[in-house]
């Protein structure tokens, strides 16, 4: 079993709903964003392109953070999800530098936005401990209840597809198959050359495949 997330960049509109849904679901401290969207510009006027890249923990098959943690606080579940045990974490900070994607957060003194928690924040914060390393869990607590990750459910463009990459009948495998047949798109990985084998994969925007992008038109 290999749970993972497929992001269809053709569908992503860069609205940051995933970012907010994640913050609400996980009650993360100020400046902590487990799911974020990079807003990028490529080229120079008049040949400029705007693109969005949603990034989150990649739950790598060969996760450097697991190897780097001297306290054995990071582990991989049988379904492929990489988690940081908040009780075992000592806040050493080795995983922060080990993660090639910059998706592990650690701050000695964490702050929240408001002095008083809302009831939901109070509930969500109980999963996190002050001064410990934190990252996206693919909403493991939701998956254990048979629900999908908050960012997936909230995406208004259905750009995020979650499921088991090893199961050919899963939603994500079916989507990949359909895209391969209809649009000839194959998923790509971020920083593939590092060999970490991420579980978060991406499908290129269609416009770039067929016309080389509108910005390339003479």
């Amino acid at each position, binding site marked *: 079993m290999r749970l993972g997330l497929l992001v269809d960049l053709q569908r992503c509109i860069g609205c940051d709903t995933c970012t907010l849904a994640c913050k609400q679901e996980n009650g993360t401290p100020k*400046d902590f964003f487990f799911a974020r969207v990079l807003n990028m510009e490529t080229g120079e006027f008049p040949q400029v392109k705007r693109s969005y890249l949603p990034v989150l923990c990649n739950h790598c098959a060969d996760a450097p953070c697991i190897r780097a943690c001297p*306290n054995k606080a990071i*582990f991989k579940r049988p379904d492929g999800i990489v988690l940081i045990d908040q009780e075992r974490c000592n806040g050493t900070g080795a995983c922060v530098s080990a993660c090639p994607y910059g998706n592990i957060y650690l701050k000695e003194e*964490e702050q929240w936005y408001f002095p008083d928690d809302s009831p939901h924040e109070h509930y969500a914060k109980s999963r996190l401990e002050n001064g410990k390393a934190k990252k996206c869990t693919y909403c493991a607590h939701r998956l254990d209840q048979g629900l999908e990750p908050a960012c997936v459910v909230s995406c208004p463009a259905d750009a995020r597809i979650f499921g088991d990459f090893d199961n050919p009948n899963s939603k994500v495998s079916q989507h990949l198959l359909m895209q391969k047949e209809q649009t000839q798109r194959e998923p790509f990985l971020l920083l593939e050359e*590092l060999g970490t084998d991420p579980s978060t994969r991406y499908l290129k925007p269609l416009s770039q495949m067929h016309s080389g992008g509108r910005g390339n038109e003479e």
Partner: protein
Amino acid sequence: MIWALIATLLTVGISLYLILTLLATLGGLTSFPFSIPLGTSINLGQWAKPELVDLGASIIGTIVLILLFLFFRRWIRYSALSVNWKYIRSLGWRRIAKDTWTALFQDSLLLSSVQKRSKKRWFVHGLVLYGFIFMLLATTLAAFFNYSNAPHGFWWPPRIIGNLGGLSSLIGLSIMGWRLVRDPYEDNGKTYVADIAFVFLLFLTILTGFATEFIMYGLNATLAYGSFLLHMLLVSGLFLALPYTRFNHVLLTPFLLILTRLNQTLVEENNVPGILDEPAPGRHYKTERLAVDCQKQIFPKNEESTVTLRYYP
């Protein structure tokens, strides 16, 4: 379970025997059962010619250095040091040296983060770490002051340092071995075999070291030589396997902690334009690398174009 039990029994046995031997020697007892005269030891120099030891150490050392180079090349790529360096350099050498020293001394050698959370865990780790440092110190001192491997008595200072270090590590490793077997959380799904390999290898190395140490006191010269050879092979194996066993954390953790500290300082000193606070030290340059990689993937024809990060949370 059985291995952990044997390990603990052996450690306790060796410790008790050492204490009793020392007490017997100090008390002037000569009829102590299984007692070994702690006078001058066998001269291993006739077998372990210093020139041959030097040659072997040089060959093994070179191989270890090559393996370490390959190991660190991978981690330098993971941590994006090549992209990070232009930011780190802006801190100036004084600040870099200060942060490096803090990461090496306070965070790594004194294990400040472990000490804050669990004194017990810190103590057990300290037994192994400081014991290992004592053994390294003893070997270095012996190499300088006893190049020809001349026989020395039990009370020769480098020997005392080495034995104390060995004993300390042996006790710590026994507790660690026990925990590796008993604590289900120790299996993180990735490094468990490497952890066991390191504890087992170091344990055997120290054990054969002690065996050599005692056999050398005139019991059996051939046996002493065999034990010494086995000890040397295990020491070589320990270092040759360094990149593949948990032993690698003695170099990897300090390296990563230096980077984490430097990146924290970068943001604290406002050396990264547009970023006032950064809860994931180093995220800014790693995000830059992601943006460039993404551009290569989705705009392969525009690989040379500049990519600008307009905004990210």
